[in-house]
């Protein structure tokens, strides 16, 4: 019993969650009429053929005429063995399409995550140290601004200013540029800036309020009495307890932004990443690719939440595992 047992159960729970999600997506897809079958029926009706016959033929071709439980088992096995089917619009396996999209998504999401995780708590602790000064108010203003401005709207405005008016950045993302080059940095600056301003606000607010609670704690007073510099008090003593509650919410929060806003930002800036792939697949009615990218995003969310919980157990030794 104890931590190991908790970790085992937590991992098992994550596996169950993925299974539930896979089942739900299958249920949703099965309950709805298949767009390919419908297309065939419409086509047959327009050509003057028998629609029912065309429907049967298409269903047989897509293997939809088998009993439900066989289809379900097939589907589940396929999902877990990464047989995610063939993407008709991209003319390649779904997994290959996702991997090539991931290449572009990683390029902006890694710097974005690092910047948010670094800047957010530091600015938050800084404004807690200078509470109610103009710097604190400025930081709060930035936090609320970033939190409230819709990412896609902000992106459009910045693209208008820097892309169309000033011509500093390309209007459409250049895919041919090497990853580590000045051009790539230039064209990714604005998307990353938009995402960072959107995600940093909440983290700044939470860390500011957390740190403010420790401003009059006994250990801070002791450190002050010993003559420790303000910088050292905040950098060494305050930021660490601040990070503990923050770490519980940060991953989930970043994931929510990753699955929502990054799609918008990719569409606005024309980055052919994962979100863009999902969007294009929805528009082009590519069922396998829609399903594949949806599952990918949900798996990332599940695994992210799992990691967050595991990291939390390691970080904070005060947690009791007895009743978990």
């Amino acid at each position, binding site marked *: 019993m104890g931590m190991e047992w908790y970790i085992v159960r937590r991992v098992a729970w994550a596996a169950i969650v993925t299974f539930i*999600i896979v089942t739900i997506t299958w249920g949703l897809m099965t309950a709805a009429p298949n767009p390919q079958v419908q297309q065939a029926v419409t086509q047959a009706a327009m050509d003057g053929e028998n629609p029912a016959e065309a429907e049967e033929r298409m269903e047989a071709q897509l293997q939809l005429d088998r009993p439900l439980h066989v289809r379900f088992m097939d589907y589940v096995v396929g999902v877990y063995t990464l047989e995610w089917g063939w993407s008709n619009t991209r003319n390649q396996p779904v997994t290959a399409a996702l991997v090539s999209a991931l290449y572009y998504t990683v390029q902006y999401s890694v710097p974005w995550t690092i910047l948010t995780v670094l800047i957010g708590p530091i600015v938050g602790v800084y404004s807690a140290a200078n509470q109610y000064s103009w710097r604190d108010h400025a930081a709060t203003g930035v936090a*609320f601004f970033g939190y409230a401005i819709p990412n896609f709207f902000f992106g459009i405005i910045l693209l208008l200013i820097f892309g169309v008016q000033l011509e500093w950045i390309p209007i459409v993302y250049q895919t041919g540029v090497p990853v580590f080059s000045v051009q790539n940095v230039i064209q990714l600056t604005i998307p990353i800036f938009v995402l960072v301003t959107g995600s940093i606000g909440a983290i700044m607010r939470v860390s500011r309020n957390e740190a403010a609670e420790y401003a009059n704690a006994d250990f801070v007073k002791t450190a002050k009495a010993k003559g420790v510099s303000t910088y050292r008090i905040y950098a060494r003593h305050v930021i660490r307890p601040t990070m503990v509650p923050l770490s519980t919410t940060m991953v989930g929060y970043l994931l929510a932004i990753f699955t929502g806003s990054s799609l918008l930002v990719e569409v606005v800036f024309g980055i052919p990443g994962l979100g863009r792939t999902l*969007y294009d697949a929805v528009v082009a009615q590519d069922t396998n690719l829609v399903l594949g990218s949806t599952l990918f995003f949900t798996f990332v969310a599940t695994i992210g939440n799992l990691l967050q919980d595991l990291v939390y157990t390691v970080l904070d030794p005060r947690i009791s595992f007895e009743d978990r």
Partner: protein
Amino acid sequence: MATDRQSFDEIDWGQIDEESEREISPNFIIVAIGTALMGAVWAFDYFFVTGTWDAAIGMDFGNQYTPTFEVIGWGYDVTQLDWLFAFSLVLFGAYMILPLYQNPRMTKYYWRDMKRNRPAMASLGWLLFIFVIGVIGPAIIQAPTVDLMTKYQPPMFLEINNVYPINCVGEVAGGDCHGSLEHPLGTTGDGKDIFRIIVYGMQISMKIGFIATLFVVTIGSIVGTVAAYAGGLVDEVLMRWVDIQQSFPTFILYLLILYIYGASLFLFIVLFSLFSWEGTARYVRSNALAKTEEEYIKAVQLSGASTYRVIRSHIMPNSASSIVTDITLLIPSFILFEAQFAFLGLGDSTIPSWGVLIAQGRSDLAFAPWITLIPGLFLFFTILAFNFLGDALLDALNPEADAEAEQ
């Protein structure tokens, strides 16, 4: 001889309990009257106004314009969403606004607290403005219509090169078309008046906020109390589901469902509220668990209050502050989601919402930036106002809550 004197343990407490439940509060009366009125109008709409079913052709035309109040010369078509919106407004009035009037002491206390927070007061003013205009506006102002003759009219005090609008409504000076009072916020590329779209968009945002709140609070409090009172396996299953829901990417789920079933504002609101009640459920559950241990709840139970009564008049009011705060931070995210889907072209493109307008203006950004900027600013200030208000409510209603609950 003392046979007809009732002793304490012979009193039928069940009967007294029933009697006490029969007392009807003014709040309930308001809700009942409001619902009855709406039912009457709905029945009138259903039976007397020509429906979408055309008997001659034998087809249902679906979303067709069927003005409900044509009898009195008011061409407003009441939709499914309007009914839900009206119902949630009645509930909101009876259980949020009226209690503020019924408890003047607490209202004054909160008001004093809120008044000190200037951004929150400004936000409240802005939201009231959006609410009033949004509710009344669409009933008075006509829906925006396509008119290619008046495309790309600039807003007042702005100008545009006269090559873009075919027919400048305002005055033309030096090759530039100037804005006029006829289109105070200008028009779009297909000649729709932006001011009208903004007003209609206000109503859509308010509908999203109120209807989603209705669903979230109802489902959340039911699940929360059931989990707390049933305990054991039921509690475990419900709370595990809440866990899944919390980590599930709603945006992606909605994209999937939209892909399968097609988009409509109604589906959007229902879906998002069906997958967002986890915060409310948690608050209610933890409150119910904590409060059942308190002395006064035990006293109430001993004096014969039913479980329903304990929940209704003790657990729910005690959870109200957390729920209100949670909701104020949830509504802006709904409004933002709607705008995002509209922008992607995956939302309901038939409704005049702010997001649709932002998307429309995107291709004309270079010469007519107001088409995107105006709705974008309205969206921004509305979300900002909800956030400021949520922050202030967090401080005012729940002094011991720390900022973690903001999440």
